[in-house]
């Protein structure tokens, strides 16, 4: 396992270096942040001074090597808009996003596996039809619309939940619920399909012939084999949330890294863009390693 982890770390490090180079130059192609930071009527002198203060008057290649030099010392630079270290702003947002992803995907995984497995057990039955109907709606529902409707219904009309923000457990209910819907719909479909294959396999028929109970057939014999593709999809969906649940963060006022990233792109806050992408990329690398380990745990044939 250790050699495998070492190889993955080296490959990820190379990818990360490529990402830094690409994002550094692509973000600079969007233009100069001076025009966005200073008022429209700022004099040329004020603009020149701003560029000098932030090193934007230097040749691009010099800016790049200066940035890399700082990065080696784990200095991600300062945010122009926030006047604080870029990494501080990113980590503050990333913690919120990480929690949001962890809670949502834990609930999604449990619910989708149970519902998908039960739907697969009686294909075409009432439960299967209901589960398929709602999971297809969930997989295709626009989360922006759901979020606004949920606020109007549960906060303004019924007064059950806070509209937005953070602070109490109640504040998490609607953001998690809205984020839950799409991956739940998708993963239910994947679990169902995968379980149908598993339940039709020879060893399950043998188990049934031997009189093994349904619950044991589903959750002990079939599920373990059906989980491999499901884990892949769970990984993809978790990655999507880690990359930023922008809509949910924007509507519910969640101070996550997705909204920070979008704001930073619009404001040309280059150091924050780079720090956010590197932190997210590192987290996704760790997630992928975890998924690889899970493959090995679930399937004894997979060894690294």
């Amino acid at each position, binding site marked *: 396992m250790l050699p495998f982890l070492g190889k993955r770390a080296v490959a990820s490090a190379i990818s990360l270096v490529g990402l830094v180079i690409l994002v550094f130059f692509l973000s600079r192609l969007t*233009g100069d942040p001076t*025009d966005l930071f200073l008022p*429209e009527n700022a*004099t040329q002198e004020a603009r020149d001074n701003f560029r000098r203060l932030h090193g934007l008057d230097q040749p691009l290649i010099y800016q790049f090597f200066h940035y890399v030099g700082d990065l080696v010392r784990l200095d991600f630079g300062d*945010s122009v808009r926030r006047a604080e270290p870029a990494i501080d702003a990113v980590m*503050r*947002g990333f913690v919120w996003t990480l929690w949001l992803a962890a809670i949502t995907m834990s609930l999604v995984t449990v619910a989708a596996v149970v519902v998908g497995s039960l739907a697969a057990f009686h294909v075409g039955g009432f439960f299967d039809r209901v589960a398929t109907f709602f999971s297809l709606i969930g997989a295709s529902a626009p989360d922006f619309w759901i979020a606004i409707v949920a606020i109007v219904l549960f906060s303004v009309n019924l007064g059950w939940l806070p*509209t937005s923000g*953070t602070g109490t457990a109640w504040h998490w209910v609607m953001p998690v619920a809205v984020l839950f819907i799409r991956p739940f719909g998708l993963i239910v479909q994947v679990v169902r399909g995968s379980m149908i294959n598993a339940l039709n396999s020879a060893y399950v028929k043998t188990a049934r012939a031997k009189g093994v109970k349904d619950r044991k057939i589903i959750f002990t014999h079939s599920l373990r084999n059906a989980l491999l593709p499901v884990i892949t999809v769970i990984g993809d969906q978790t990655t999507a949330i880690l990359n930023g649940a922008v809509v949910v963060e924007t509507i519910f006022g969640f101070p996550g890294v997705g909204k920070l990233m979008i704001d930073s792109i619009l404001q040309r806050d280059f150091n924050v863009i780079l720090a956010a992408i590197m932190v997210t990329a590192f987290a996704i690398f760790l997630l992928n390693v975890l998924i690889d380990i899970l493959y090995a745990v679930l399937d004894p044939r997979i060894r690294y």
Partner: protein
Amino acid sequence: MTPKLTKLGAALLATTIASTAYAEEVTIALSEELDIVDPCESSRSNLGRVILQNISETVTELVPGSGLQPRLATSWEDKGNGTWRFGLREGVTFSDGSALDAADVAHSITRIQSDAISCEIGAKFFGGIELTTEVVDDHTIDITANPAQPILPLLMSTVTVVRDGEPLDAYVDTPIGTGPFVWDEYARGQHIKVSANENYWGDTPAVTSATYVFRSDSAVRAAMVAAGEADIAPNIALQDATDSSMDSSYPNSETVYLRLDHATAPLDDVRVRQALNYAVDREAFVGTILADGTLLATGMTPPSTIGYNKDLAPYPYDPDKARELLAAAKADGVPVDTKIVMIGRIGNFGNVLETMEALLSMFQDVGFNMELQMFEVAEWLEHYSNPFAEGRPPEIVEAQHDNANGDPVFSMFFKYACEGLQTGICDEKLDSMIAEATGLTGADREAKWSETFKYIHEDLVGDVMLFHMVGFSRVSPRLDFTPTIRTNSELQLGQIKFN
């Protein structure tokens, strides 16, 4: 009284006190999270709504309807040669207990012009002006502007005063000011809390504490007030202002116009510029894609500005006259068939795209060869601000200009002088009119600005002036608070009362 009754009485008293305390707290839902919170950046609208006159006070204060009023300065006098003497209020302390004196004002002025930080107040209001100070005594300061600024006391209404010791090369992250409120906490991404300053020199505000939260979606901000989670949402979209018991509109000091490039044909011909003006059915926008209450504009600044020329009338919608003017220009060899590029700014105001598409349709209807391009702010600025690209096509740039400061001087040089950053005109007579009006005071100043507006509107046909915009705020029924033109840039907690 028995012990039980005593306990009951105490409990009731505590409940009463608690509910009273709750009633004096307010929550305000802002549209953007604050980035830098230094008072020298408080001309940014969202920071201004938190800091301006709440945490940090200005030297003077511009009050809608009342004009320039004392704030930290109680008097001012023109000493000549660009120097003004300001007498400061005595007995004022910062929230850390230190006393306000002239050295603090001198330091604040130095700081907004510091090269080591980019303070927006300095860049926005004092570009090209050198300010020097001389402390006369603890409560008297001479401020000299080079070139001389006849409206220096008005310009001082933009200067927030900080302590003498605040760094010249770094922004502060905990603002300390002399205002009626004290900065308590900023949980980034979540909220800002302020509470009443017990040692404030002025009247004690009814509000005892305030919490600012950040929600970028207008519908959510409006819902927060409807659900009782917030008391004021100062800037909501037209489509979310659906409850007349809570929502009100106010002139928000923004003027929307089309800046014409007088340097390129066919826009260099006055008949073409007139045709553009006659082609627009301005009234058709109001109450449809723009809010009811939107005013038709004839000048760059809102009607509350001094020198606003009330005698000017918007160009009427007359497509036939527009066609005639174009035909006359064409007959004289003006290349009216040249493709004109109309440039809009994405997200500049609510329904900007619909507005631009409607304008395009009106221009094409009278015979203009025109295309619309919508840009993000940075790319838009490349077309809006000098230096303009060489060999550019004839361009019309849509812009929204904010002047809540009561005087055209904050607008006219930048928008119309030959050296102005966003000017589409270079006219010698106009330059001298702007320079003359800038140097006058009182009624003469007002008259000169008025004359200047008329010259631009009728003689030069400088732009296609469109609308003075209105903003919408949602205010909880438990508050007695009416948004004004200043709500676009500040929100004084001291002006909030409870019903």
